[in-house]
């Protein structure tokens, strides 16, 4: 070939336009080959048939008004939904045997939970740290007080006193260390803070003796955490330091205010509603939310332990994961409900036992999902972190886990969805969740008839589908968001 040298640059051009985009779409994507055309038609007709059957059942043939089985007698023959049955049982399906005049408490917990959760789920939300503290730290306490009942302020006081002691001890430990090391001006400041911490500690402990021995044990545990924390102080910008100090001060003020008026504090109490009366969708949500929220930290700890270089820790983690994964959830629920009390002097409440069982079960699955993500992180990331002087917890918390968890979002959400539906198994240990409540409702002689079975299962199916679809849509949104941030 002869030498070629370009004389003029070729200008950038638009891609060619088609005369009929619809025709092109039909030709290329729908009817490209006979097999594809047949497949499209078959799929469409099948989908239409199913959708039509569903519409027929839920709307066209359905009965909408009435108050007993007589109203639904005709749909027993022609296959239609018996909505008056659902309407009549709705309270029971949503709240179980939770007293009607106390259901506002459940609704209030829903409302507060949503108000906290929705901004937290937004990918670019601000104040995520504060929202997280509120949702994962304060909200469970709030929900417990409201849903279970009993003295309204006492649990807050307890948690508050614990927290004050904790903060004071942290401050004390950190500044006791600083006194030896820093220049004089800082020594004075550190000394002042040590005195302040001791005062806070005394105040905190002065509130604490009001409580039982279990709380003292709590303090001992917190002391242990503290030694670890003092070694590994997180850094903060000035503005954030003040935001956090403000938060702590407000909390301490709240607790101190409560303790000053202890007589008043002891007074207001909500009617106690034992968990045996909880039920319906409400208990499904309690079990699923607890399981979902608890499974992630349990899973992370187990996954890290399983990859640990310490042989005993690794073996224990492997043993735990394999045993819990190797038995059906029902077995675990039976064990935690009926056998656990035999080993303990003061067995926890029945629902708490179920929550522990579900959390451990979900945690073991989560551990394997997260371990998959951990294995995908290249060795170079660990080496880069090590060469910068980052320790184990910093490497894991800042570098490895954030990447690993992003990689396994689909698996994590898959596990959440599975768990949400697995909660129906709690009915075998006499907890009437949504499905259990529905089956109880079927036994009502005022409504018995075949149509209420179809209607009931269709209704519960729609609710479960709604929740699971929301979760899966959200996970797709998150994946999309995280991907956009990463590549060009």
């Amino acid at each position: 070939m002869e030498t070629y040298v370009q004389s003029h640059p070729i200008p950038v051009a638009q891609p060619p336009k088609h005369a009929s985009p619809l025709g092109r779409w039909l030709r290329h994507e729908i009817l490209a080959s006979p097999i594809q055309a047949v497949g499209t038609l078959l799929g469409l007709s099948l989908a239409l048939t199913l959708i039509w059957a569903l519409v027929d059942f839920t709307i066209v043939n359905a009965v909408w008004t009435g108050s007993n089985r007589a109203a639904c007698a005709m749909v027993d023959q022609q296959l239609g939904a018996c909505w008056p049955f659902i309407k009549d049982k709705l309270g029971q399906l949503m709240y179980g045997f939770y007293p009607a005049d106390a259901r506002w408490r459940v609704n209030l917990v829903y409302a507060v939970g949503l108000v906290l959760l929705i901004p937290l789920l937004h990918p670019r939300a601000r104040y995520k740290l504060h929202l997280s503290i509120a949702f994962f730290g304060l909200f469970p306490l709030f929900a417990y007080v409201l849903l279970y009942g009993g003295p309204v302020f006492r649990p807050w006081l307890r948690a508050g006193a614990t927290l004050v002691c904790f903060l004071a001890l942290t401050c004390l430990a950190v500044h006791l260390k600083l006194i030896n090391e820093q220049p004089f001006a800082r020594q004075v400041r550190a000394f002042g803070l040590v005195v302040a911490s001791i005062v806070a500690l005394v105040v905190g402990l002065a509130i604490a003796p009001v409580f039982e021995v279990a709380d003292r044990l709590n303090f001992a545990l917190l002391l242990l955490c503290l030694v670890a924390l003092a070694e590994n102080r997180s850094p903060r910008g000035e503005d954030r330091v003040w935001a956090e100090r403000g938060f702590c001060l407000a909390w301490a003020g709240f607790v101190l205010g409560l303790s000053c008026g202890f007589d008043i504090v002891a007074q207001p109490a909500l009617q106690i509603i034992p968990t045996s009366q909880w039920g319906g969708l409400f208990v499904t949500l309690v079990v699923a939310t607890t399981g979902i929220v608890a499974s992630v930290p349990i899973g992370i700890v187990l996954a890290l332990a399983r990859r640990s270089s310490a042989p005993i820790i690794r073996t224990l983690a492997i043993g735990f994961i394999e045993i819990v994964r190797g038995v059906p959830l029902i077995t675990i629920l039976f064990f935690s409900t009926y056998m656990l009390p035999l080993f303990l002097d003061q067995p926890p409440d029945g629902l708490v036992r179920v929550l522990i069982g579900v959390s451990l079960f979900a945690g073991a699955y989560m551990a394997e999902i997260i371990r998959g993500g951990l294995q995908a992180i290249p060795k170079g990331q660990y080496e880069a972190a090590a060469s910068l002087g980052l320790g184990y917890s910093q490497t894991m918390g800042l570098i490895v886990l954030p990447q690993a968890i992003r990689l396994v979002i689909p698996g994590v959400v898959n596990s959440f969805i599975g768990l949400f539906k697995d909660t129906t198994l709690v009915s075998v240990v006499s907890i009437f969740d949504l499905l259990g409540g529905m089956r109880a409702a079927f036994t009502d002689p005022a409504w018995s008839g075949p149509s209420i079975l179809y209607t009931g299962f269709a209704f519960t199916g729609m609710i479960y589908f709604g929740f699971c679809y929301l979760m899966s849509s959200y996970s797709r949104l998150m994946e999309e968001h995280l991907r956009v941030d990463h590549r060009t």
Partner: protein
Amino acid sequence: MLTAQNTPELMADPMAIRMVGVNKWFGALHVLRDVNLEITRGQKLVICGPSGSGKSTMIRCINGLEAHQEGTIVVEGTELTEDLKKVNEIRRNVGMVFQHFNLFPHLTVLENLTLAPVWVKKLSRRDAEEIAMHYLSKVRIPEQANKYPGQLSGGQQQRVAIARSLCMSPRIMLFDEPTSALDPEMVKEVLDTMISLATDGMTMLCVTHEMGFARQVADLVVFMDHGQVVEVSGPEAFFGSPKHERAKLFLSQILH
């Protein structure tokens, strides 16, 4: 206790790295055989040799990414032992640049640079960002601060990696084949950054096959083969008249 670097006697000690009788095995494979090296402050070493000769393993031993089994390694007055405190002290003083950059892909460039100063040196975020921007300007990509590593070219990523190490104000920089994973057009921008670092008086150990760079920057060229140091000489002597047979062969292979 006073830290070793602050005592005047030790500051006067010109030795940056001292390796005495260092031996290392991978299983039964003897990968470092009795390595002895003394590197004074501000010296620039280029380490070369055929693949599998132990170049990378040697410099990875200096900041404890690989543990040596026999011998002594002293870095800036601190002896490298299994004690994690010592290892971390050395790692704070020693920066490292990798062949595949190893940037943190989930963090922006700026976050990559500020992470270690904030979490390891406990600087405030504002100070750390100021230092980060200083070094980003120094490697001439301050405008990329808020991008993610995946959005940069290989050469830019490697320059970010160099800046990330510099943010910890290390006394010694280790380079493990920093240009071998780059497109040919990007090699120069990274080498330029390294040359300007050398001009500033940084102690540098570079495993590289960039012989032009070695001629221009190196005070000493270390040639390794089968885990042994077989020749150490100035660049003029090494490239002009290599003494060892293996070095002669190596140079004849790479310089056509």
